[in-house]
């Protein structure tokens, strides 16, 4: 029972990510949670209060989806990161200017260690999820399911075999195949984002 519930929870998470890619409403929640720390860190640097930070977050999401209605896996995540940073910075500047008419835009200090760490952590989480999503796209659904339960969740092979109506041999092969593909996806990510670590 618990096993089935956990399986369903995972499926929901994956489908949320897929919805994120196609721009469906439920993905906004995921997107919000994933990027909230980054956007808030920028708001903090502009001296915004919590209400203003929330406004910044909403405006960034609106601006992001205005210019990009698709959100595909891209090993060149560093480029996307810079692109997203720019959207946040421009939005924060626009909000600041609107509220401080006539005043000069503050000169932002260099990124603090705290900001860098926060941003790095959020990006890292995003890359892990995108790597898993990419793997899911590259293999058959039943292979992915077998891999997820046995390879990632470390469940007993016979339990997984019964649950998915597969042989243990199929599950072993699925794990090995998916591990190889995942290794290659991670390697692609590292080529463009050398600081990426598991």
């Amino acid at each position: 029972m618990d096993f089935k519930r956990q399986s369903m929870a995972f499926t929901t998470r994956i489908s949320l990510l897929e919805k994120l890619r196609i721009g469906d409403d439920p993905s906004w929640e995921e997107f919000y949670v994933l990027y909230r720390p980054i956007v808030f860190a920028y708001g903090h640097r502009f001296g915004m209060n919590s209400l203003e930070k929330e406004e910044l977050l909403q405006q960034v999401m609106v601006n992001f989806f205005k210019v990009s209605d698709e959100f595909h896996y891209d090993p060149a995540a560093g480029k996307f990161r810079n692109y997203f940073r720019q959207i946040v910075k421009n939005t924060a500047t626009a909000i600041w200017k609107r509220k401080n008419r006539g005043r000069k835009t503050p000169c932002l200090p260099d990124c603090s260690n705290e900001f860098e760490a926060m941003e790095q952590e959020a990006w890292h989480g995003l890359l892990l999820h995108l790597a898993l999503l990419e793997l899911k796209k590259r293999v058959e659904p039943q292979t992915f399911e077998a891999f997820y339960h046995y390879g990632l969740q470390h469940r007993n092979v016979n339990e997984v075999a019964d649950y998915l109506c597969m042989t243990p041999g199929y599950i072993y092969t699925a794990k090995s195949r998916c591990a190889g593909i995942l290794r290659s996806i991670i390697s692609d990510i590292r080529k463009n984002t050398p600081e990426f670590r598991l």
Partner: protein
Amino acid sequence: MRHYTSQELEAYRSGAVSILSGYCCKKHLEHCPRCRKILRELISDDQLLSQFAAGLLRHEKAREELRDEG
């Protein structure tokens, strides 16, 4: 000499074989570099997957905490 398949070695590695089968496999591995190599690759896969799963879990927790705070 009959070599073990990758599936058989995975079963051995994960402890999903009988005591006797496990013993035979262990003895075989002592003398077979080819099967030891496959076993090493399987162990390496496990290390990668453990790190990956731990990373996902850490981020899930962090995101849930943020959700709760929000």
